[in-house]
């Protein structure tokens, strides 16, 4: 008698276990996808729920490696020429400490500031910051006054000095307009990484981490939480989206 009672209780326990497991398996993806659904579908407009940013580890950035620059030029259709009138959206800086002689190499580009001086000074509002923090130039509103180039503390902007040919269809550029790094917005909007980051990873340096600063689980947020990083010209209090570690 007692044996049959025990076996019935075990059956019930097994049933509850199995039921719980099935319920878990059924509900878990839904809960998981609920989180994913917070992110933006490609056809949606950008949202301030995200803030794109980049962390650059200068200790991993190799002196002499120019892969991020080359990838940027290829992705955005830049000539790669380095004359004083040529556009350079990203460049490698060699930084030498005058007191200690310590030399570092690091990439410099638009820092996608929270309070961008280029946006403040632009008379027509062509310089603009998207809700997700990416600073762009509206090709149809830029009158080519170059005041934003005067105002940018990072020398991140270039003026197109000559007519352009064979442009990339998703990277509009134009003679007489100012341009700069867009964080490869055409890729980011498709859920991909900027070309420079991809090239750095491909080379195995992994010196650049790109992601959503507002997502606490993103690789960049976790990296920023676990290491010391700084803004370039932090004294200007611009709240840059690009931060550096190791300098």
């Amino acid at each position: 008698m007692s044996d049959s009672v025990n076996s019935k209780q075990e059956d019930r326990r097994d049933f509850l276990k199995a039921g719980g497991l099935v319920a878990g398996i059924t509900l878990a993806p839904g809960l998981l996808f609920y989180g994913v659904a917070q992110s933006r579908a490609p056809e949606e407009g950008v949202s301030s729920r995200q803030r794109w940013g980049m962390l650059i580890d200068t200790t991993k950035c190799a002196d002499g490696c120019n892969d991020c620059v080359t990838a940027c030029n290829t992705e955005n259709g830049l000539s790669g020429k380095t004359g004083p009138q040529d556009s350079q959206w990203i460049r490698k800086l060699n930084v030498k400490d005058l007191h200690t002689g310590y030399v570092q190499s690091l990439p410099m580009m638009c820092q996608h500031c929270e309070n961008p001086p280029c946006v403040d000074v632009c008379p027509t509002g062509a310089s603009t910051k998207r809700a997700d923090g990416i600073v762009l130039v509206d090709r149809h509103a830029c009158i080519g006054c170059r005041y934003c180039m005067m105002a940018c503390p990072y020398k991140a902007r270039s003026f197109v000095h000559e007519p352009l040919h064979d442009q990339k269809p998703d990277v509009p550029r134009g003679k007489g307009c100012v341009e700069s790094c867009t964080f490869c917005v055409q890729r980011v909007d498709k859920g991909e990484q900027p070309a420079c980051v991809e090239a750095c990873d491909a080379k195995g340096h992994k010196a650049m981490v790109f992601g959503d600063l507002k997502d606490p689980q993103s690789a960049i947020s976790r990296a920023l939480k676990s290491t010391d990083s700084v803004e370039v010209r932090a004294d200007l209090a611009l709240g840059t989206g690009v931060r550096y570690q190791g300098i």
Partner: protein
Amino acid sequence: MAHEVCVNQGECRTVEFFALLGLGGLLILGAMYAFFTLEHHGHILTGMNNQIVWGLPHVVAVFLIVAASGALNVASIGSVFGKDVYKRRAPLSGMLALALLSGGLGVLVLDLGRPDRLIVAMTRYNFHSIFALNMIFYNGFFAIVGLYLVTLMERKLKYWTRPVGFLAFFWRLGLTTATGSIFGFIVARAGYNSALMAPMFIIMSFAYGLAIFMVVQASMYSWNGLTLDLAIRRRMKKLLAVFVGASLYFTVVFHLTNLYFAKQWDYEQFILLDGGIFTLLFWVGQVFIGAVLPLSLLFINRSQGEHLVSFSVLAPLFVVVGGLCQMYVTIVGGQAFPLTLFPGHEVHSSFYDGVVHAYHPGIYEWLLGLGGVGITFTLTVVAVRVFKFLPQDDFKTVLMRRSTD
């Protein structure tokens, strides 16, 4: 000749007038040639680049714009402060202000990367931008000074002269404050980023505007075979000396302030000691030709008979040359000095970081700059011919003194 449009029929000198018109026209044609060439080929043909983004055209443009508000000062002294001698000069002062502003804005517009989008600049305003506020100030200046001229020329409206004159005075102060702030608000560059920029531009505008006014006035008198009354000349010379002295004072304070801040030492060393063309233009152009020389000329004591007219033309001409040098040092020098990305570090890159940037203005920049002067010159030549802008002093006395002073 009976149908000639000419205020002083006895002194029409039509051939010379058309020669002057031709000269101004040539300068404007040159600017149009440069404009269309750059519009087609891009700024690659200029000496400007991604390091020196504002070059010679901007030097001339900002100088003319600053001088425009200064030229109006003569009218303001008349209408706002009630000085009779200046009241008689108010129409010429107002007209000159409009002509100078037209020339300056003309160059700015012709140098835009996309001048075809001027309509965008006129319809989309970013009110955070001091540049956009400047556009409002410029347009307002045309309207207010235009209205002011109407009140001066139409007897029925003469009671409006004073209030509109007041408005014009405050508007011009605002305009030059905004123009100086174009540079004062640039946080990142060592050569700018100073609250002193706005008041310094105002006092410099007084000097440049009055200097141009005096040259134009002297030319008009000479054209009509007249000599400006000695008392008036003395008065204006003293005023110019005050303005030039005050400009020099601001220049000294600006650099002394910088010398007090260790982070600004490199920039000061660049401008004051080893900046090549910029150091030369600062000391020889801005300080010596633009201030020391005219001040010496203005303060030389002479007996009445020896008081040369040329002194009251030479001194302001030197002020104009010094003013152009000052703008070059401020605008181009401020960009030539490299941006500081990492204080205490030496920086190198393919984008010319950490090096003093070279600038060699090309023919198109010269043509654009001269075109701005051409626009001002042509407008002035036409205006003084078709309107009564010659200051109406006590001519009988002046005519009597024509060859004696």
